[in-house]
């Protein structure tokens, strides 16, 4: 190999993921009015899974290295291991008690510091938002801290001549953006179908050595910038939406007649227009 070739390294993609309660299992604690996170089945935040799938597609096309990153308690290992079993090369969990209660401001700061410690990043992918908080702040926040160009709501990425060409799905149409690497993209929910874990991937996880835990001290995160007291968000009030009562009428008889009766009732009650 020539000197030039030995200097070549694969493109490195960092995918930020969060573990969230499964959408169907969402429960609000009636006492604290906050989301129950302990003891409910969890999953990779669905838009993050789309970001991961996009990264794995790019890995296949460009032999890229995919590093998955998350911040949270060690129970998040489950999702990071799943990401490796799906095809990511390795995973990093930033885990530290002092991070507890962080909102999106400290989270974006802490993740950007961790990404710098991982180093050598060419592309950072995040989901457009999380299903448990829906702010969409963290991705753009990381881009801000790292002073990177960013493209939000991306549904596809091509790497051409060392540049990112991204398809951005906006409310009023589709935009195509191009920017130099390194860059950060947030990925549209549902833009692809995340793959299942493979046997080979699960074996890699079992063999170990694919996941590391880092503390704030190890990364060099300023304790005065993270945690509940350094989070500007104030939750003023939480309301639980009450479902309106149902009429509870049941239409019986021959399916054809029952449907007719149902339609007539809906028309009469002005639920639907003729």
């Amino acid at each position, binding site marked *: 190999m020539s000197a030039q*070739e030995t200097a070549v390294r694969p493109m490195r993609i960092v995918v930020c993921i969060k573990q969230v309660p499964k959408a169907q299992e969402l429960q609000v604690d009636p006492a604290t009015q906050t989301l129950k996170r302990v003891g409910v089945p969890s999953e990779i935040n669905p838009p993050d899974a789309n970001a991961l799938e996009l990264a794995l597609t790019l890995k296949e096309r*460009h*032999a890229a290295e995919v590093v998955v990153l998350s911040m949270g308690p060690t129970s998040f290992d489950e999702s990071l291991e799943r990401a490796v079993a799906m095809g990511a090369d390795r995973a990093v969990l930033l885990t530290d008690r002092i991070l507890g209660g962080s909102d999106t401001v400290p989270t974006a700061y802490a993740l950007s510091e961790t990404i710098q410690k991982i180093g050598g990043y060419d592309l950072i992918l995040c989901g457009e938002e999380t299903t448990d908080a829906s702010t969409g702040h963290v991705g753009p926040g990381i881009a801000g801290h790292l002073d990177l160009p960013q493209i939000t709501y991306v549904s596809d990425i091509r*790497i051409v001549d*060392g540049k990112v060409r991204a398809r951005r799905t906006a409310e009023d149409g589709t935009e195509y953006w191009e920017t130099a690497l390194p860059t950060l993209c947030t990925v549209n929910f549902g833009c692809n179908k995340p793959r299942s*874990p*493979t046997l080979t991937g*699960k074996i890699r996880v079992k063999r170990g050595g694919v996941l590391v835990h880092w503390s704030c001290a190890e990364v060099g995160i300023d304790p005065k910038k993270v945690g509940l007291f350094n989070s500007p968000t104030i939750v003023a009030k939480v309301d639980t939406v009450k479902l309106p009562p149902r009429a509870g009428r049941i239409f019986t008889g021959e399916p054809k007649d029952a449907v007719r009766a149902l339609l007539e009732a809906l028309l009469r009650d002005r639920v639907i227009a003729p």
Partner: protein
Amino acid sequence: MIRRSLLFGPLFRDGKRENVERFDAIVVGAGPAGSAAALTLARKGFSTLLVERGRVPGAKGMFGGRVYAWALQDLLPEWAKDCPVERYVVRENLAFLTEDSSLGVSFESPKLTQGRTASFTALRSAFDSWLAKKAQDVGAMLVTGIRVDDLWREGGRVRGVTVAPNDRVAADLVVIAEGAASVLVRAAGLRTDLEPREVSVGVKETIELPAETIQERFGLGQKEGAAFVFAGQASLGLRGGGFLYTNRATISLGLVVSAEDLARKKIEVAELQTKFRTHPAVQRMIRGGKILEYSAHLVPELGASMAPRLWGDGVLVAGDAAGFLINNGYTFRGVDLAIASGIAAGEAAEYARAAGGMTASNLAAYDRFLRARNVLTDLERFRLAPLFLKNERLFGMYPRMLMEIAERLYTVDGSGKDRLLSIVLDEASSADIPKWKLLLDLLQGARSM
């Protein structure tokens, strides 16, 4: 720009490496057969991968719920210490049912509860997880949530398993232990598709009852259990039978019925189960219980004569996938044979390794190890049972006859009683069975049991 295109461009396109994981042995299916095989292989120093399609071992599996302990004793002499036993069976019952009556035989003996001859009831999820954990404890790697669809074959020999085109794992030996509906046995070319006549359908309901109620109702102590096998009306006269096992705080109630008969008579197995459950004799036992779960599964009824080939180049078949099940009308045996065949598979692998490799001719030693554990010998001994059990008189006519005899023996209405023999002969002739047929059935029954 040039640097970038070099970085991410064609240079690496061909560099896509297939990182193939490699083991000495892969066992497909973490049921009793698979875990016993993985445990034995790992103990003998094979690097072993145990792959299970359920989220946890036992999640996708189903069995009647009773385990004969002898094979487990061979595998893990200390099993009784932490095995998730529901109850030890202290009483065996055989009952013939007609529309509304029941005639039963009950057997109790200290032998039923001692060491190798003991049997116990268990819940599949707990039992399978426990056994798979034992395999992990000695070094087998368990991976769950992966369905293996195909074998990795090259030049006629099995080289590993294929989950997807770029998801293959290599091994010198693959042990197929994925149950009755095994697709891999077919993929290995060891057998053709199953025919309806070769399988039965097993259904089971788990019915919740307080432990104290179970103990009171069946006259049992705290860790004691009862097992029932039902013939006759249980299966509406179709070939097969019913079973009831007492767990700690649930009852397993189910049927095993010939798939061929179900199809021929156009009866839904769920309908059959409802009829069975609502039979007065069964109702009495489960009264007040709540149905927690319903499951159904294929049960192989191959008999030794129709079993698939059990070995090939780089491959062995164990448990239900190999048709290792004995249903002789009074016992349903599967788990013990599964475990014994898993052990034998490990022993065959050890033999083949010493003999120079996992070739079909070396792995043929499996036959010898299966015989040493009485798996094949028992199967052959009972190979007539499926034929005998095919006799429809056994499930329809005879129970009815027995019941009428019992009715005449036990109902006293002051009209004068006949002697037993004349009642029997009288019933036989009124049931329209020629005496020679009765004698023939008796003989055949005796031979097959």
